[in-house]
């Protein structure tokens, strides 16, 4: 399974999302490859992704995708991530 975390530069908030998503997935016992990327590369990076994690600002810019787009509000809230990831993957 592939999950992509998207932000503006691909180095700050998406990197934090990646780290926390990996922790939550480990806790859920789900094996997945989580990549952090910037919005400019979303179409190439996310072509084979099941889930895209991002902020509300980027939903329009991500455009057409087969992946589930999961909008995260508090990047440090493991519970929010867990609930939303479980919902998207369940």
């Amino acid at each position, binding site marked *: 399974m592939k999950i992509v975390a998207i*932000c*503006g*530069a691909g*180095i*700050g*908030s998406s*990197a934090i999302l990646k780290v926390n998503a990996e922790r939550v997935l480990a806790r859920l016992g789900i094996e997945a490859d989580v990549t952090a990327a910037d919005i400019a590369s979303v179409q190439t990076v996310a072509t084979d992704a099941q889930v895209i994690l991002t902020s*509300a600002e980027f939903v329009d810019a991500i455009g057409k995708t087969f992946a589930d787009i999961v909008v995260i509000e508090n990047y440090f809230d*493991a519970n929010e991530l867990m609930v939303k990831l479980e919902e998207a993957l369940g």
Partner: protein
Amino acid sequence: MPLPQLTEESVVIGAKAEDWRAAVREAGAALTRSGATLPAYAEEMVRMIDEHGPYVVIAPGLALAHARPGPAVLANGLAVVTLATPVNFGHPHNDPVSVILGLAVADAEAHLASVAELANIFNDEGAIPALAAADSVEEVQRIMGVQL
């Protein structure tokens, strides 16, 4: 890889900023004082938000200001600015912001481990209010895990 060093020069307590741009520029000035960036990096951080919106407000009360690696980045750097009066970034859930982290990375690949450190600090939900209330540089450094 640990977080970039949080030196005295890269911490500002109780900065007066009239809006989010001024707050982000404070973080940029702190990064420049610490030797991590050229002054131009501050405007690059402002431009990222102008371009993509207030997504850098990644948790209630906290903005992670950053731009891309580039010529304005001299070394990996981290700055912490707390505001005397919180400012709004226009974020739907996480405004108002009282703590700005400024992040500069020279190499995007190499810094993931240091960002993991940030996650370790802030997965404790008390960290942001504690930073906002800190009244000394040492206290900020302690919350940020600096060995004093």
